[in-house]
């Protein structure tokens, strides 16, 4: 029983981590329909920036945190300006391939600077955040992940549903020329969504780093894990990303715990394909509206 609860807690927290990584991804997709293969590398960029600021520059944690987030916000802007903007209007596959190339660039660069080893942050989360549920102890990082996850879900949910800016962003993804004709600043929307996405990615990179330590290879493979999560949830659904993250997190830990560790890596994909055959737009994805 305690093994089960242990897996449950691990699965949930892993799931929230996936969900958190997926949020930034959905953000980009919702406003520009780009499938970002460099998401894991963006996470790594944020995580390492935080590492540099805390351990090398020895800044106070809150300051380092704010600097990292704003740094990545800027990074997002720069990426959009340099790489994505020339491709506005090109085919989907070219944009996908561009993010693949970007991923390789970032990964190579980060490996060049930091190497492939694991780095650790100084520990800073208060002990008081540790939760005790009966026999189970939930470490503070997990609690923090959970809180951040919920916070983001609510924030982005409201942002896209009700705020004018959110509606403008959705309008751009829906029909670019029409948005342009109404005075929506399309290029600014793209830049903003990349900036926010990079910031969210940095956030999830840091959280992941606190739990496992940071390592370029691992972060970039988490970036790939985002795909089954967002597709399962439905590419444009924030709530779906959270739910799918939790499902896949649980699936992985339980498969790993009860069946086999080698199957663990593959099970999300198997489930993904099965679910997609029943629900072709994921659990909550918008169904394509076709008029003949």
């Amino acid at each position, binding site marked *: 029983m305690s093994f089960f609860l242990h897996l449950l807690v691990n699965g949930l927290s892993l799931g929230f981590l996936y969900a958190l990584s997926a949020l930034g991804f959905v953000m980009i997709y919702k406003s520009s329909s780009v499938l970002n293969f460099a998401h894991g590398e963006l996470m790594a960029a944020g995580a390492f920036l935080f590492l540099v600021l805390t351990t090398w520059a020895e800044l106070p944690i809150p300051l380092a945190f704010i600097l990292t987030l704003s740094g990545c916000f800027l990074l997002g802007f720069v990426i959009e300006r340099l790489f994505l903007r020339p491709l506005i*209007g090109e085919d989907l596959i070219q944009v996908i391939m561009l993010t693949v190339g970007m991923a390789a660039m970032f990964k190579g660069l980060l490996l060049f600077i930091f190497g492939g080893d694991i780095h650790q942050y100084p520990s800073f989360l208060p002990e008081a955040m540790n939760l005790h549920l009966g026999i189970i102890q939930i470490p503070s990082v997990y609690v923090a992940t959970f809180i951040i996850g919920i916070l983001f879900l609510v924030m982005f949910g409201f942002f896209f549903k009700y705020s*004018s*800016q959110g*509606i*403008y962003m*959705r*309008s751009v993804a*829906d*029909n*670019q*020329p*029409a*948005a*342009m*004709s*109404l*005075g*929506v*600043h399309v290029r*600014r929307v793209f830049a903003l969504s990349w900036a926010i996405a990079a910031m969210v990615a940095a956030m999830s990179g840091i959280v992941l780093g606190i739990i496992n330590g940071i390592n370029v290879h691992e972060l970039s493979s988490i970036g790939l894990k985002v795909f089954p999560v967002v597709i399962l949830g439905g590419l444009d659904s924030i709530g779906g990303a959270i739910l799918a993250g939790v499902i896949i997190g649980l699936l992985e830990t339980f498969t790993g715990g009860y069946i086999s560790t080698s199957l663990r890596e593959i099970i999300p994909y198997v489930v993904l394909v099965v679910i997609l055959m029943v629900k072709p737009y994921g659990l909550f994805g*918008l169904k394509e*509206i076709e*008029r003949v």
Partner: protein
Amino acid sequence: MTTEQKLLINNISVVYSDVIQVLKGVSLSIADKQIVTLVGSNGAGKTTTLKAISGLLKPENGKVTEGSIEFKGKSIQNLPPEAITRQGIIQVLEGRQEFKYLTVEENLRVGTATRFGKPYHKDLERVYELFPALARRKKTLSGFCSGGELQMMVIGRAIMAHPDLLLLDEPSLGLAPLLVREIFRIIRRVNVEQQTTILVVEQNTNMALQIAHYGYVMENGKIVLEGNAEDLKENPDVKEFYLGTAGTQGIKSYHNLKSYKRRKRWL
């Protein structure tokens, strides 16, 4: 003309992808608070003219290479669309470019982009008052709306922006006769009640000339005829090529259409 000029297009040429010339020296002017219509065949360059004004040529790799476009005395040619819309020029694109995955109300809210931060609830109410059909469909995804509802929605969306100059591209395309009249009645109302200057490109020349004050006829990238709407309606060429004889003889027999036709004189 005695009224103040709102928009002045002076001898512009438009070229797509640096090679394809679509407009060859087009000049037209729109007086303040008037409805001006632009008619002509498909491919004559009417839509391109609208896009040259609204700046939407750019995303399609088009450019105004010669001439000037002045809006309220200021030159606006080749500015990016954001800058032009901010000055109050809003274009309603051809073929109901709705945001499929946004509800009707959200679609209307996108119209506030140029007035970001200003209250918009009054405007929403006004649009619903102009188009009661939209009020009933507020929460529906626009992808599920009928063609008529969509056409009302995209016009309403433009009205949300408080346009100074409204550019309408074929507002009656694919609409039923009753609805066509309804739409034109509303265009007229917007012009009268909100003092909006309107440039309307229309295939339904008959309707367009009924509501417009002034009209231009365009063929092959050039303006070939212009005049007050009343005068144009009486012009024999306009009658034959754009109005048809429907007005005078009722339904004409399509079974006796000849294979050859009189060509347009000005071509």
